[in-house]
């Protein structure tokens, strides 16, 4: 990867819990030392269960949340020490699509207002014809320009969210579970649209999801997160997972074919408490392969020449 568009180096975010009277101060590591490089035109997926830190990571990449440690470099510029003005200019080149198509649009805004906001927020004039063009690009009729969000379906709203993210012609988009609250038929529409847009506008995506099947379909490269860390990097959608957690995730997702029913007993238990992280591998308590070293020493993320990486003392061969 000669010229990565995005480089994350040791990005960490700690949240302090509000202190309660007579109790020790608590904090949680939402994201713990994540290092990733994303090439231009690449579609990188981040997959993990709720609370694994994937949404925090999405916001750290765009500096919507400040990292506690580490740096985020965008096209050679370190975003983490840009001034507010410079950061605003940088935001023209990156954008985000959000999970909830309902709360992501101001109920008082018409679609035209929504789509002109990126320009107004940047102090720019809306180029003539741009609103129509954006609506067309996401498959919405330009008759909807004066409609309010409450008049649209969930799928249509998510298209508006995508159009807004496209408004300033960014190079990089973070997609934070854009289809998680949509029906499957609409999810497929939106994924299809995103793929088409990536091709037409040579976009780079960071796609956050809890659905390994969807990520495998959509992404070039997959990062698996557990408890704030990357535990495995799958270099391609067909790569065979080596981390027991990734394997468990795979075995937990069913296939839409009654002839291919899973007979494996799923893994037990749930992730550990965020306030009392275990000293060793966070997955050890749920892992059938765990040994004493797993419970005491944290396995590093070991890379292999083919671009794969796994953080496990006993990876599956």
């Amino acid at each position, binding site marked *: 990867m000669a010229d990565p568009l995005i480089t994350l180096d040791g990005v960490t975010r700690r949240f302090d819990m509000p202190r309660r009277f007579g109790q020790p101060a608590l904090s949680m590591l939402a994201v713990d030392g994540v290092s990733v490089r994303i090439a231009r035109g690449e579609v990188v997926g981040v997959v993990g269960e709720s609370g694994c830190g994937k949404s925090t990571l999405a916001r750290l990449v*765009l500096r*919507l949340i400040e990292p506690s440690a580490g740096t985020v470099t965008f096209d050679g510029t370190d975003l983490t020490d840009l001034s*507010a003005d410079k*950061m*605003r*200019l940088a*935001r*023209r080149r990156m*954008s*985000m699509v*959000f*999970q*909830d198509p*309902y*709360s*992501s*649009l*101001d*109920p*008082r*805004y018409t679609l035209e207002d929504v789509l002109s*906001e*990126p320009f*107004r*927020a*940047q102090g720019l004039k809306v180029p003539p014809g741009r609103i129509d063009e954006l609506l067309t690009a996401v498959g919405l009729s330009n008759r909807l320009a004066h409609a*309010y*969000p*409450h008049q649209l379906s969930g799928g249509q709203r998510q298209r508006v*969210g995508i159009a*807004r993210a496209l*408004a*300033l012609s960014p190079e990089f988009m973070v997609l934070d579970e854009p289809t998680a609250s949509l029906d499957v038929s609409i999810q497929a529409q939106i994924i299809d649209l995103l793929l088409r847009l990536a091709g037409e506008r040579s976009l780079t995506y960071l796609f956050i999801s809890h659905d390994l099947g969807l990520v495998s379909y959509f992404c070039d490269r997959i990062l698996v997160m557990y408890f704030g860390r990357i535990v495995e990097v799958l270099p391609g959608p067909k790569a065979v997972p080596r981390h027991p957690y990734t394997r468990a995730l795979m075995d937990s997702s069913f296939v839409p074919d009654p002839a291919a029913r899973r007979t494996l007993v799923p893994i037990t238990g749930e992730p550990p408490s965020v306030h009392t992280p275990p000293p060793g591998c966070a997955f050890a308590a749920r892992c059938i392969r765990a040994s004493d070293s797993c419970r005491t020493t944290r396995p590093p993320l070991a890379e292999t020449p083919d671009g794969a990486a796994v953080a496990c003392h006993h990876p599956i061969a």
Partner: protein
Amino acid sequence: MIDRSLSVLKVALGSFKGRVAAAWLLVVIVAAVFAPLLTPYAYDLQTLSQAFQPPSASHWLGTDEFGRDLMTRLMYGARTSLSVSVVAIGLSVSLGLVFGAIAGYFGGRVDRAITVVVDLTWSFPEILLALILVAIIGPGVTGTLLAIGVAYLAQFTRLARGQIMSLRSETFVEAARSLGASDSFILAHHLIPNTLAPVLVTAMLATGDAIILEATLGFFGLGAQPPTPSWGGMMSSGTAQLFRAPGIILFPGLAVALTVIAINIFGDALVAAMDVRSRERKA
């Protein structure tokens, strides 16, 4: 904005109750504004020979202990009571919005300081706060106005802060920030406009409470000073005549009650109308 407000108003006026309430409010406002044109008497004209007249054609509601026309005093009283309440609530709303927005948007120490003071004052009954303030500022129209304004300040600061806080975590605000919008842009284009509607409805309901508070202060003799008529003041001087001429107390009290009830009914209709709209939004 305007067409949205109009459509809410239309829904609110759709019910019979809403229309009656609005009509009464209109009557009171017209009576207050045009009092000098509507009555042949002066509010402070004492005709002792005419004292304690029962209701008649020339004195619709009768006269008080000084022979002053009760109807006339009621209409002039509406001027004092309404204007004091409206101005006082206007004061609380504008200051409350500013404090609430500062606390809600910036959070941290500023927020904690404001919240502590606000929560403290909020748990005290408005009448006590107003009594303290009148004690400090002194009785009269200005004292009452300021006292009521400050007494309700906590409520509006709380409301505005809560609104801003919950809006701040809405995804559309995060979306705006991801597009490079500054704090002031977000405040001006998302937070304040979305806070305004619930604050205005609450302000309307609070105006009703303020009318009662003004009347109570007046009743204690701490409101507008004689001979300026106010609904509370009229009842204060009427207590002595309670057994002889209950009308002196009955009619101003009725005016307060009907006006406050009308404000509540109309305000509830507005809330319901806005709810209908938000439900449409979700469907």
